[in-house]
């Protein structure tokens, strides 16, 4: 390339194909990606439920009973199951991606991907067991 080479930054006559609004349906991995991003809404949903639960708890036994009755209604139950499935998808996909983002080196050697995602899964199981123990104890 000569030093004086000149390029036009933009040429309106050139053809640039537009990206369709439905680009995320073009391949399975694109759809998976969009669903993973969307699953954050489910995570937010559970956070809001938790805040509402604490608020109901502060409102006394009557308010709390009303709150649990609402949670038990069929509509909210279906929403809860859907949100739970999304949260599972969220957790699994992110745990599987963790080794790509996190490179741990021990004595100059890269720790294998399985060890990184495995430790994430292990922490998930342990924390879930602790929560289950606290919930089921009483």
């Amino acid at each position, binding site marked *: 390339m000569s030093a004086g080479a000149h*390029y*036009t*930054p933009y*040429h309106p006559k*050139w*053809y*640039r*194909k537009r*990206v369709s609004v439905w*680009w*995320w349906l*073009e391949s399975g*991995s*694109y759809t998976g*990606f969009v669903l993973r*991003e969307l699953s954050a809404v489910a995570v937010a949903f559970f956070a809001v439920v938790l805040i509402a639960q604490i608020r109901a708890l502060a409102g006394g036994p009557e308010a709390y009973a009303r709150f649990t009755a609402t949670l038990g209604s069929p509509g909210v139950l279906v929403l809860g199951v859907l949100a739970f499935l999304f949260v599972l998808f969220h957790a699994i996909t992110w745990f599987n*991606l963790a080794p*790509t*983002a*996190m*490179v741990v*080196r021990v004595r*100059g050697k890269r720790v294998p991907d399985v060890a990184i995602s495995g430790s994430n899964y292990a922490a998930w199981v342990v924390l879930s067991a602790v929560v289950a123990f606290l919930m089921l104890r009483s």
Partner: protein
Amino acid sequence: MMVNGEPKLTCAAFLSDQGRGPIRVEPLRFFPIIRDLVVDITDFMKKLKKVKPWIVREQEKPVAEGEYLQTPDQLDAYKQFSMCINCLLCYSACPIYGLEPSFVGPAAIALAQRYNMDSRDQGARERLEVLSHKDGMWECTFVGECTKACPKHVDPAGAIQQYKLVSAAHWFKTLLPLGNR
């Protein structure tokens, strides 16, 4: 080029691997087409230059002092990212680049990281400034398709996520009273 809708290094692709035809061959996606299968890659060349993909030294040491030495482990830290051949398949695989053409893109960020992780380089701060802005690494949402498309196993998606971690750590450090600004 795009082969049956997938970005492929056609000089290394065999017809026999494509199964029975017909085969659809298209110009590399998301780049303006000049003619037939020829695309204009000026955009990428500009972005590549912006991330300073060369060894930056605050002060060059005199030639008489010899080479900058490197251990096999130090080479290993960046070697994977240095395998990039600028084929631009990762740009074609990245829906973010298609939707936001101002995004610096996978290969340029991976190459920035290649020099950042080179023990001989001192330009990490300059590159961080370029890549921390709006069109830099934070535009990436980790679709991960660039890594799948890469024929050289560079793993641009990994490079970008690791870079985000470095950038976030740097930002936290600036919040500390004795942090480096």
